[in-house]
């Protein structure tokens, strides 16, 4: 049984301390929704990359976590938003190896590979919102008795 309690939240992203709380919240929420260990690790890593982008490139912002479901499948949707300078060239920002400073250029493109759904909206001068969704894998169906 999975409930939304402890899953839905809106967390500020203002310092590297906040990155720690974002990671811990996402891990707990994913665990409550029945995500396996590898899925949890991927989602927390993606959240860490995106939250750091919000902090470093967006000048701070927030993460909103929502519980979503599709049939019996539980999912976690995370939205990272900032009111920073925005991204002028999204295709370039999403390509491997592109970096606007300091990192390895894997943040955005790498995070995209770690989640099931990825959506980015950015308006130069007004800010950026990245939404990602991960679904907990269904446990394999038990074999039917012959």
């Amino acid at each position, binding site marked *: 049984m999975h409930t939304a309690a402890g899953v839905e939240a809106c967390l500020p992203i203002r310092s590297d301390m906040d*990155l720690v709380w974002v990671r811990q919240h996402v891990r707990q929420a994913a665990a409550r929704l029945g995500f396996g260990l590898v899925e949890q690790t991927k989602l*927390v*890593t993606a959240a860490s990359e995106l939250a750091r982008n919000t902090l470093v490139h967006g000048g701070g912002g927030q993460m909103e976590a929502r519980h979503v479901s599709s049939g019996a499948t539980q999912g976690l949707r995370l939205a990272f938003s900032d009111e920073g300078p925005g991204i002028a060239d999204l295709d370039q920002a999403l390509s491997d190896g592109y970096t606007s400073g300091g990192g390895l250029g894997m943040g955005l493109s790498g995070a995209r590979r770690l989640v099931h759904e990825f959506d980015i909206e950015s308006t130069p001068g007004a800010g950026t919102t990245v939404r990602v969704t991960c679904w907990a894998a269904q446990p394999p169906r038990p074999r039917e008795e012959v």
Partner: protein
Amino acid sequence: MSEAYSRPTTGHVPVLRLGDVLLVTLQGDLHDSTAQQLQQDLSETISRTGVRGVLIDISGVEIVDSFLGRVLAEIAAQSRLLAARTVVAGMRPAVAITLVELGLTLPGLSTALSTEAGMELLARQAPVTRPGGPRQESP
């Protein structure tokens, strides 16, 4: 899975000296600033003590993102310049899977499955003549 928030690691990570090796155990969730502080502490300690190896145990680390991955790679690179080798030990399987998918294979990093195996790896590769040091003549 524990429901309690793990205590974030802030400030300095302890660096232990075991003979010719510096041992660092990373645990829980590391602040960016703590990781950067460790990078600086390690280079200073290597330079001061002249140790030949650095072993970083990450078995207690739940995620390695591109930031921590870069710090680990930079620690290995700077240690090499200071005549010490770095081994990262105990990476969790889920972390390895995630790093590859993220696109970070960290080719310059030596790894071992456990601290023990890491110490063996460092011991095996220890007898290297130190550049600039006195030449060791075999009798």
